[in-house]
């Protein structure tokens, strides 16, 4: 039995300790927001936070997370309030198919925690491990800049999107 602290809650799982964390999160904990993309830490779809640091869950044995603070996409908001990065993602209408977006958002949240006002080079460096086949990169970049400008701390309401922001 391995005890995980997931999104602030303690959970016991009975799995082979070498099982990648990804499959434990998805199958044993039924937190399916974390995605499988490649299995070899090439795409970032499985990005979660271990003690606040982004890791690739597909190559991290579950035993390595025992007793640590594990955060998934389901755990970054404050109750029903979205994290400012999630709000910025809606404001910039970032997701298309959406499959990689949990990983993109987890990488962005970690970046902004370290660097509250990242420049484009810092964004490139922090996000280049997250592949998006829909090509949302320009919007991911804008959303990170938007979140960086926003007041910190989750707010109570979801922003509605302002169609006047860009294209006419």
């Amino acid at each position, binding site marked *: 039995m391995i005890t995980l602290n997931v999104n602030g809650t303690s959970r016991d799982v009975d*799995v*082979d300790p070498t*099982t*990648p964390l990804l*499959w434990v999160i998805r*199958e*044993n904990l*039924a*937190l*399916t*927001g*974390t*995605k*499988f*993309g*490649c*299995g*070899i830490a*090439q*795409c970032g779809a499985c990005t979660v936070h271990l003690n606040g640091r982004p890791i690739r869950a597909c190559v991290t044995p579950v035993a390595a997370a025992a007793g640590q603070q594990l955060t*998934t*996409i*389901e755990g970054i908001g404050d109750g029903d309030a*979205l994290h400012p990065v*999630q709000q910025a*993602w*809606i404001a910039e*209408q*970032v*997701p*298309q*198919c*959406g*499959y*990689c*977006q*949990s990983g993109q*958002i987890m990488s962005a949240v970690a970046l902004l925690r370290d660097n509250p006002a990242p420049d484009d080079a810092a*964004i*490139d460096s922090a*996000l*280049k*491990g*997250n*592949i*998006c*086949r*829909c*090509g*949302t*990169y*320009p*919007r991911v*970049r804008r959303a990170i800049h938007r979140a960086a400008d926003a007041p910190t701390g989750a707010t109570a309401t*979801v922003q*509605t*999107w302002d*169609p006047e922001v*860009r*294209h006419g």
Partner: protein
Amino acid sequence: MGKWTRRAFIATGSVAGGALLVGIVIRPGDRRGELAPLVAGDGEHLVHAWVKLAADNSVTAIVPHSEMGQGAQSALAQMLADELDARWEDVRVLEAPAADGYANYALAKGFLAGGLDIPRVLVPTVDGAMMKISDLMHLQITGGSLSVRTTGVYGMRVAGAAARQVLLAAAAARWEVPESELSGKDGQVIHPGSGRSAPYAEFAEAAGRLQPSATPTLKTPDQFTLMGRSVPRLDIPQKVTGAANFGIDAQVPGMLHAAIRRAPVFGARVQRVDETAALAMSGVHRVVTLDDAVAVVADGYWQAQQALDKVQVSWTATEVDGIDSDGLFAQFERDMDTAVANGDEHTDLAVGDARGALARSDRVVEASYRVPYLAHACMEPMNATARVADGACELWTSTQNPLGFRYAVAEALEFDADRVTVHNAYMGGGFGRRSDPDYAIQAARLSAAVNAPVKLIWSREEDIRQDHYRPAVLSRFKAGLDAEGRLLAWENQFVDKHEPAEAPHVPYDIDNQLVHYADSPTHVPFGPWRSVDHSQHGFFTESFIDEVAHAAGRDPFEFRRDLLDAAPRHRAVLELAAEKADWGRALAPGRGRGIALQSSFGSVVAQVVEVTVAGGKVRVDRVVCVADPGFAVSPDGLTAQMESGIIYGLTAALYGEIYIDNGAVAQSNFHDYRMLRMDEAPVIETHIINSGAAWGGAGEPGTPGIAPALANAVFDATGTRIRELPVGRYDLDFRIEETDEVG
């Protein structure tokens, strides 16, 4: 030849909307009765099969298309809600069930369009002989950039207007006022004379008893309230929280997990399996052999995948075991030469006398181009969950063709189709790949074999190696110029023609054109890949016209423009792209700029790419994109699709190559099948022209022009003409001398 018929069906699937009218007899009658139980809940009244109005006044658009990120479901709902005069905040989307009533052909000839002329865009473009009638009847495809321009224009708008009309009629009867005095606004019926108003929902039940018109009056653009506005997409909030449900997220009680390995050489079958080591592993239930594949079914996916690695499989030998991509291109060369020598090539387009004009040209420009096989590499690997029990199958997956999957799975299990239910989830990418039901059939067969629900997930390696690939193509050109550099003749020969039919054709006014092709089939399965044949022919034709311009000593933008007098829509798009990109402004040495123009799926797109070539590497700095979709239902949605199509196309142009080695795919995962990443993504500027032309598509038209615009920019920067993709094959060194910038 059953297999080839199916392949042909798959290959043409993404333009299947164009194939819906071939001699199909439509079942008469109103679909409401049959479909109501499928889509209406308690206390809800089905106004008709495309709109659901609930007691809380929420409006549900029942959309017969699936969502893979292209935003079609929101755009279709937007079109419906505008004609209905609904409030956007009240609008929901429900994906239509995989039922015959929602097959594409039903739209084309169903009651909504019953009194209308058949839309020209639906005129068949596929080779009817290659497609079984039964396949046509069971297509519910999302592809061909067709959702807005067919379902939206001929379905959703009509449905919204018809629904509004019956609601107003019902209100008029209850209030005993003339219907002409009523109007709809924000989900309310309004009677200005008396100041009375009431929510639509109050009239839903009465309206449900009225027969909607097949030809209701549609709004004119000046009356639009939602169309043309960038309303927020309905699927996005759940995609930032992890709550969105994809095929891979299916949860079925008692379900087991499966990993699979199919014969690496296409056409090989399982010869012998040693499952001893796998069966000894923890959590493993069964090793199942499926003709051409071996799967392990276990408690968890990781256990299944680990055990599969321990299964020893030998495969049957095939005639293609020694084939590689170089050999396939040699085959293409031979077959093209033979076709010309024997005079049995297929004529695709003949205008004037191209060969005669070439013979009397002062100068003939010749070039040969090739593109490799490409995988789709959807972020969500192929997967499906099936429960086969008691002679029925329930399937949870993500597909571009839920109804087609239902029939394909039924056929594989030898069930009647009414014993198969498909639950379609969001697709983690589609790009054409999810029109092929191979993964769903595997899941269903595995569930039947182990008598339990099974979730089958392909590894990324399986996903790359068992795709239905964008075909490798060879294309040769000749152009004839007169002494003044005018283009007299255009000849193009290529291998294998698929869809859309017009993909090889150029918009330029050339008096003598001959486009022809030779058949050169291979053992490599092929299928629609974002923009289908446009993706290769766009590269070929827009690269070659650039070569011809340079050969004629002309600026490549001006050369194109001067051939577009008869195509003002194309010309306007091209000119705006050149203007927005500061065409003609000098660039520093090592930098270059290229332009391309493509018309596909009803939309016209021009792109200007700026690159920097340094240390032999190409960096794409900036893309200026001008799109004329006729009318942009959601300008931001169209912009997003241009960005997406550009990055998808750039990935392929810079890095994409599936190489066939010993009959099988050599690549396996993202380390050897590279994707464009954040640090390589260019600045993209999209400009939209609402020209008023017939509404075009969005999901694909951004892709075909980007590879040639890139290749033309690389030429501008380096003097190296890219005639084979990917660009990464070339050892590029930028010119040290002054670039001969166009001025």
